[in-house]
């Protein structure tokens, strides 16, 4: 979440495009890693 805030502030302050893109990608990858961490069980879809 802090990375997201830093990325948003970087956009607001019109910082270097590559820096903004890097921050955004890092935030996205961290979100995916968190998702992977929290997905610990297989889905029960036996209706």
């Amino acid at each position: 979440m802090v990375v997201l805030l830093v990325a948003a502030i970087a956009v607001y302050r019109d910082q270097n495009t590559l820096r903004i893109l890097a921050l955004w990608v890092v935030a996205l990858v961290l979100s995916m890693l968190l998702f992977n961490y929290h997905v610990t069980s297989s889905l029960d879809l036996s209706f």
Partner: protein
Amino acid sequence: MTDVSAEITSEDASGATAPEPPTNPLLSSFAFWGFVVFILAYCGTLLGAFAVQLVGGEFPCPLCMLQRYAMILATIPAMWIVLEALRGTLTRGRYVRSIGMSIVAACAGSVFATRQILLHILPGDPGYGSAVLGLHLYTWALITFQIVIVFCGVMALLNRHAVPVAPSGSVARLAAKAVVWLFLGVIVANVVAIIVLEGVAWVLPDNPTQYNLLTQLGIG
């Protein structure tokens, strides 16, 4: 409304600029306000989630928080578009790049929301948290992500005719900036919320039942 066709340029691999096809002023204005509404809509969604959390006394689970992250990830590029349009530095290439970023984030958010829907899809499962207008928050989240994908897809299709152009009126520009400020405030509120909820830990528990930081400080 000024004709912006002469102002919009794109950069090729060598860095040289070339004139772009003419844009439709009405569509360009519509595109600008479309992205302002995009930001405002997600601010409302995130504030609504806060209302359920703080007024309804429901603690967001890790998947709920991940969906909030994805909403913010999808809205940051929209904010980028609005701010660059306000500064007059928005090019067609930058516009399409930002649209792509929003679509990628909305796809990630769709995965998070779908996982949570499937966790509670069996008949008789009450779902996580209370329903709002008949649907749980994660179902609403999936709907919003699909709307973002469709909206961004349509705006990408129209990019030859409409690159967002900021209005010249000071009140309209101030309104757009106020929406950006509101979004920044919502992000700050989420940062505070996750810190209070998580406390001194790297991740949230699967089923949070308390504000960990308050408990760790002995005031909760």
